């Protein structure tokens, strides 16, 4: 029983990490049709900015409130980089899907290399608040606090995103844009402003994933974002592109499946099961759990 609880909660922690990356990807894709390969870069930027801020920004530090401040710096940096990328690189290629993908691919290669040139390719030890190194007993299992932190953060982000999308005017524009961008444009609303905002939100969520992922893994390295990105892509496809709620369901399914199979089967089998799940979902329901049809 305690093993079950442990696996469930650590699986949810993994799911939380996936959700934080996938929600931004999904929104960006749903609204702007951009498959963002640079999303992993936003994650790495968030992680490195948090790590840097913990050592350099006055008031920020590796513990307690200082860490919250450092993470806030990381999130701000992620949002800023994402917004800049949208304004400078993506916007001129509006509606040219392939070129946008190509630019984000180039950006992910160049950006990771830039991080490597600045801070080296080796993993750096990440500042971890004292509390996150401990464990909490739940149902007879000792759950790492870092997992709990991730789950709480992801739940908060999900709630905030849903509130924002449902009850604000900009959220309404974004939802309408995902449904039918032409109509929104025809009604005289500048959807492109929403693009920048969605990029910034996605970048912030990814940066938060980077900061908390640093706490979870205990270190930060330039390539970290890239490996998470592939599973985030899978989550987005399974969940249905453009749907935040779908991403949440899919992230939970993927995280739990991966954790349980990796524990009861051979290591690595869980990752393969996740791809098998993707294949099954595509065969049975190509538009994803909550999405509209992506097949033309």
């Amino acid at each position, binding site marked *: 029983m305690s093993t079950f609880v442990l696996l469930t909660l650590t699986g949810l922690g993994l799911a939380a990490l996936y959700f934080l990356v996938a929600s931004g990807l999904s929104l960006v*894709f749903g609204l702007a*049709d951009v*498959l963002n*390969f640079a999303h992993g870069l936003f994650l790495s930027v968030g992680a490195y900015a948090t790590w840097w801020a913990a050592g350099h920004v006055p008031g920020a530090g590796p513990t307690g409130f200082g860490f919250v401040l450092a993470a806030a710096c990381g999130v701000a940096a992620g949002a800023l980089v994402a917004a800049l990328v949208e304004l400078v*690189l993506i916007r*001129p*290629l509006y509606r*040219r*899907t*392939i*070129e946008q*993908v*190509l*630019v984000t*691919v*180039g*950006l*992910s*290669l*160049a*950006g*990771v*290399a*830039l991080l*490597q*040139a*600045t801070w080296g390719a080796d993993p750096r030890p990440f500042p971890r608040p004292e509390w996150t190194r401990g464990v909490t007993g739940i149902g007879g299992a000792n759950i790492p606090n870092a997992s709990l932190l991730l789950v709480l953060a992801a739940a908060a982000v999900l709630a905030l995103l849903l509130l924002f999308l449902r009850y604000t005017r900009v959220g309404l524009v974004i939802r309408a844009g*995902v*449904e*039918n*961008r*032409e109509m929104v444009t025809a009604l005289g609303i500048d959807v492109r402003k929403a693009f920048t905002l969605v990029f910034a939100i996605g970048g912030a969520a990814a940066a938060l994933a980077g900061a908390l992922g640093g706490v979870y893994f205990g270190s930060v390295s330039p390539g970290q974002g*890239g490996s998470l990105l*592939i599973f985030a*892509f*899978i989550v*987005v*496809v399974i969940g249905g*592109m453009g749907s935040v709620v779908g991403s949440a369901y899919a992230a939970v399914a993927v995280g739990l499946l991966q954790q349980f199979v990796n524990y009861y089967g*051979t*290591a*690595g089998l869980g*990752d*393969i099961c996740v*791809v098998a799940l*993707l*294949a099954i979902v*595509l*065969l049975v329901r*190509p538009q994803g759990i909550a999405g509209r*049809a*992506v*097949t*033309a």
Partner: protein
Amino acid sequence: MTQAVPVSAEAPPAATPPELEAAPRRGGWRRLLVLGPLVALVVAAVLPYLQIPLPGVLDGPFNTYGNLQLFAVCLVFGGLAASYDLLFGRTGLLSFGHALYFAAGMYGTDVLVTHAHLPLWQAAVFTLVGSAILAALLGAIALRTTGIAFAMVTLAFAQVGAILVARDFGGLTGGEEGLPIDGDRLPDFLLGVGNTVNLYWLALAYVALVVFVVARVAGSPTGRVLAGLRDDERRVGVLGLDPYRYKLVAFTLAGALAALGGVVYVLILGGANPHVTSSELTLSLLVMVVLGGPGTRWGPVLGGILYMYLDHRLTSLAADLPGPLGQPLFVLGAIFILAVYFFPGGLASLRGRLALVSNALGRRRKDETVS
């Protein structure tokens, strides 16, 4: 947006597809151009006999073993990029899983030779057939989606390959260490540093084969349908042709060509290396094709050769370059982004652009070919 924009409709920035271009016009030097590929092939084949020093470009003359190995690698990637172009530039399929079939060719040959003790030619045949079947199966699933979803699904499949190799199930793949190929099972002329030149010729033959096959396919009726799929998939469907079937053919053929490249590459490296399973390799294939010019005969080959050359060269120059310039991927990524904005047709469009310039200068009035 109401419906997913079919990506294939806006696919690569190719100019007039060469397969639909009018027959070459008569003219003294044009006839030479027709023979150009043959001449290039002969020149490339005799290069190892020439002692040309290329200061700044190469360390030492062309036929040192190191340089021959480097160029063999460049040629394999030129061919691999050309096989990827069959998907991306010719059919408009944005696959992110092409590295999987290359890796299948490498690891398939390596495992069959090293663990199953098959002779090389048997291992190569089995690997090729197996990789083609793998490509057909995975393509059959992945092609149920289109556009961006297709890209993601192929990426996920390739990731399984990377995991399988990295986890080293049953000690087959050697995990992170890679798997050196068992030299005792290989023919003598492929072994040893002194025979590097044979590997170079093998790589050259591979490129020639891929270019030939891709050009033949592109010029055939099937190739016209593929170009049609790239430009307007719905229209091909309306004409009564089944897009799915044609795309699957292109996917399988490209996968088999990539696997053949893997067979050659494992011989050049003397073993399989888990780096080839990484998604980074597929991304760099995309970079090669776009830099070279998607949908053209020579663009992807040149792009692949140039990319690998720069990657290698920048790595060896890294110590002398300041800051981020010492990272080859930073330079290549930056060049790539600039190319997407300013050279949408890649290297292959340069000839057309130069022709435009010379037209403007009023010298060669009739030379307006854009290839």
